[in-house]
């Protein structure tokens, strides 16, 4: 156990924990100190991650190891996958924090909100940097615990009910993971993540066992990743404040599940082993079904946030689909979607939050003509929607291109069919929104309604929205440039840019 600079991943996690503790200790008052703490913590974390990135570029490695139980260590390390997820979440944490400060200006319980918000990010960083499944599990469960108070934040009966549903799903998912973990531990001991998988030597004679373990893990991660049929908590959790939805969907919970699936396939089983056991087909099939199913249900939602939620159900499964398809191209597609979907979806949620806060707009019908009232937000929303649909040259297109190419290369043309269908469905539920924004007349009632957000608060909400929209745009436009998420993922997977 060393606490030197190799333990940087630990400090990255601890920054958010300490921020959370300080915010709790500070209490409800002293808003400025809290804001300073929030931003300070987020910036410091981002700086540390940048440092780690640079160090990793020059060949350094980071690892913190601490024995928790005999034969089981808490391991925090930083590989490329870690850095991808960590950078994304640190960046989005900063932006979401700014947004949330504006969003929750007048509402009660801000200390509690920001405390658990930070804790949630800490857990996400832990999930990102976990060096073995045991550590992953610890932070994965911590994430459940830290997000529950955010889901029930408003304390209304609907919020409490949504929280109950969320827990029922995630805790049972956690139990499945735990059983899988115990089983795996009895079989293989507490082995660390290894690129290409650590279980290959054990495969002979244990096929059925390994299959069962994989399914347990897949279900455990699938709950958070909102894989069919474990997704129904996600739309209900929309009762939470918009920054929470943004965080749940773009950065933390859903992504942690998807990230777990990536780790499971790539670093625990290894793609080859998973394929030889027929497990990737299973995962790909489930993911593809979820992609279509989520889109179909999104069509039927008249509540804006619920429509976005079902869109998430659909889009996140691209990640699993890509990883399960295998091959360099599809893997690139899946992994890069981790970033692309995050940026795009957070833009959409910020916009939805702006509409709700600014004009009290919650349902799809109320969007008519809002392009005039809230032009900046509406432009960002349009960009996000186009990105989701996958209109070239936006981020979603890049993802789908690689996924499609990968599917072709792997000889799985049905996946292309799924992609096409999904794109059509995406267009079917997003384009009407864009149409309403820009081409429908603004009703009189809406034209007369005062904007509820003004001045500094306006900037705190719209500023971050512009930033994430711009990032989503740039990630697509400059996908081929060094430094882009795509470039990064390509280097990680080992393909040629």
């Amino acid at each position, binding site marked *: 156990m060393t606490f030197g600079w190799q333990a940087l991943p630990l400090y990255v996690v601890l920054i958010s924990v300490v921020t959370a503790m300080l915010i709790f200790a500070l209490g409800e008052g002293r808003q400025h100190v809290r804001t300073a703490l929030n931003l300070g913590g987020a910036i410091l974390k981002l700086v540390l991650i940048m440092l780690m990135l640079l160090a990793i570029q020059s060949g350094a490695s980071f690892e913190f190891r601490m024995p*928790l139980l005999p034969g089981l260590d808490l391991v925090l390390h930083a590989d490329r996958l870690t850095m991808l997820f960590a950078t994304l979440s640190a960046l989005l944490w900063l932006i979401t924090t700014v947004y949330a400060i504006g969003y929750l200006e007048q509402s009660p319980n801000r200390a*509690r909100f920001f405390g658990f918000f930070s804790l949630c990010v800490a857990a996400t960083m832990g999930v990102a940097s976990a060096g073995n499944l045991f550590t992953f599990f610890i932070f994965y469960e911590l994430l459940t615990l830290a997000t*529950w108070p955010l889901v029930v934040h408003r*304390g209304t009966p609907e919020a409490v009910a949504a929280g109950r549903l969320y827990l029922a799903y995630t*805790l049972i998912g956690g139990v499945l993971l*735990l*059983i899988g973990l115990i089983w795996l531990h009895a079989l293989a001991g507490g082995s660390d993540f290894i690129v290409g998988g650590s279980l290959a030597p054990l495969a002979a004679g244990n096929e059925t066992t390994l299959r069962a373990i994989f399914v347990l893990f897949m279900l455990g991660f699938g709950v958070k990743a909102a894989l069919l049929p474990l997704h129904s908590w996600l739309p209900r959790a929309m009762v939470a404040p918009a920054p929470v939805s943004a965080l749940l969907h773009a950065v933390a919970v859903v992504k942690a599940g998807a990230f777990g699936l990536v780790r499971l396939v790539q670093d625990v089983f290894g793609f080859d082993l998973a394929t030889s056991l027929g497990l990737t087909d299973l995962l790909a099939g489930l993911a593809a079904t979820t992609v279509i199913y989520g889109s179909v249900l999104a069509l039927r939602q008249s509540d804006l946030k619920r429509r976005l939620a079902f869109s998430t159900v659909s889009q996140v499964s691209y990640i699993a689909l890509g990883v399960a398809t295998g091959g360099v191209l599809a893997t690139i597609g899946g992994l890069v979607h981790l970033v692309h979907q995050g940026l795009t979806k957070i833009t959409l949620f910020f916009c939805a939050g702006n509409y709700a806060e600014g004009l009290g707009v919650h349902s799809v019908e109320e969007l008519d003509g809002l392009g005039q009232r809230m032009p900046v937000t509406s432009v960002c929303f349009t960009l996000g929607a186009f990105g989701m649909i996958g209109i070239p040259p936006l981020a979603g297109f890049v993802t789908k291109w690689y996924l499609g190419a990968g599917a072709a290369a792997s000889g799985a043309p049905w996946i292309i069919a799924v992609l096409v269908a999904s794109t059509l469905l995406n267009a079917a539920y997003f384009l009407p929104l864009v149409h309403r924004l820009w081409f429908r007349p603004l009703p009189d009632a809406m034209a007369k309604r005062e904007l509820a957000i003004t001045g500094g608060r306006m900037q705190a909400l719209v500023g971050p929205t512009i930033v994430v929209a711009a990032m989503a745009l740039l990630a697509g436009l400059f996908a081929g440039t060094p430094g882009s998420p795509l470039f990064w993922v390509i280097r990680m997977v080992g393909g040629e840019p």
Partner: protein
Amino acid sequence: MPSEFLIGLIFLPLLGACLAVLPWRWSIRLGVFGGLASLPALLAALTLAVIRDGAWYYTLGGWTAPLGIRLFVDPLALLMLWMVAIIGGVAAAHAWHDFRPGTPAGARFWPLWLLLTAAMNALFLSADLFNLYVCLELVTLAAIPLIAMAGTATAIRAAMRYLLLALLASLVYLLGVALLYNATGTLDLYLMTDGLAASGGPATSLAFALIAAGLLLKGAVFPLHVWLPNAHASAPGPVSAVLSALVVKTAIYLIYRIWLWTLPAEDPMQGAVELFAVLGAAALIYGGILALLQERLKLVIAYSTVAQLGYLLLVLPLASVTAWQAASYQLLSHGLAKAAMFLAAANILHAVGSDRLADLERLDQRTPLSLFALALAGVSIMGLPPSGGFLAKWLLLEAAWREGRWLLLAALVLGSLLAAAYVFRILAAGLRREDPTEAEDAEGTSPIGRRQAAYALLLAVLALVAGFGAAPILDIVDAGIPAGWSAP
């Protein structure tokens, strides 16, 4: 001079109790500080001695066993003694506010509290079956008046029921002791084993059955738990904490001692561990369901104790190093977490004036620290990471998995889901608010309230920290593993 530390653990609280009987404020203070604050220092020294020299005996009065009475200290005893010192100490600090020396309540409270502390320390150190009977009676007769201090009709009734059943339990235990003395000619827990191996028969087996029955009743093991929920729920907060965290554990501790140390490995009564495990699994499920159905916070926590005791029995047939670590860690983390919950519940009850779950809305504003303590402790009770409870549950699951005990495994999983359900039910009740736009209450927490909450929080944080500090603790505990369990 480690033997002096051993003596001090029993006699400092005992003499402290004597001092606290005297009428002056200073004598009570001196008794409490001398009897409680000294314990961690004594234990630290004792722990070092045990790490260095291993377990050892202390012969009282110089009369060697089997004639005299011995004390025995080993890692298991140390663990329990540490819990008495830490949990009892923090609970005492919490009680200081309500039972100030110089008040009539304080004058009645502290002698009993100190006697209870001395009795538990004596019990964890005793190596003599009859002496243990005396210790058990002292624990009972010191604990029950503390319940009755709450003064409510429910508390008095619960105290009465507890007393009657505890007396019955002691008698049944004593009956077993009588038969064992007759069969072996000794009362020493550790000398008895040879005699049993030589002259054991159906009579001694039944003697152990009687002892088990008595202890199961005292330990409120399902289905003999009927006295526990009301007794633990109606006592004053710090008393509830100590009852659930420590007092019921005395009986479980004795079951461990007798089954894992005294009873010869080949004795047919070893088969009773299977029964214990069944009872433990049943307790886990039954207690969890009942906790889920309660309408009062303290009753939820009390039924949770009924459930959590199940873990401690469930581990008995698993007989492995991992199982041993699981048992030790469950003892520790349940103690910390449960005491934290009861202290927090006491604060909430004090602030809100009711502990009905229906009355607890907006606790996050009314008693934020106590609710937070409740939540942190709840994490450990549910066995979710990061917490001591999680490590304990992990070890239990691992031990059960290794032995292929699928039913126990299923009970464990179901039990922890039930725990999650009742803990989150409490928390949801506390976060509820009827009107989301309602302005913040100006009602801040008083300095006293903050301090009382801090004690609950301290224990809850310790339960959480236990999730990271297992390695050194398990190192010590491993050295005290019972003989039959160390085989791979």
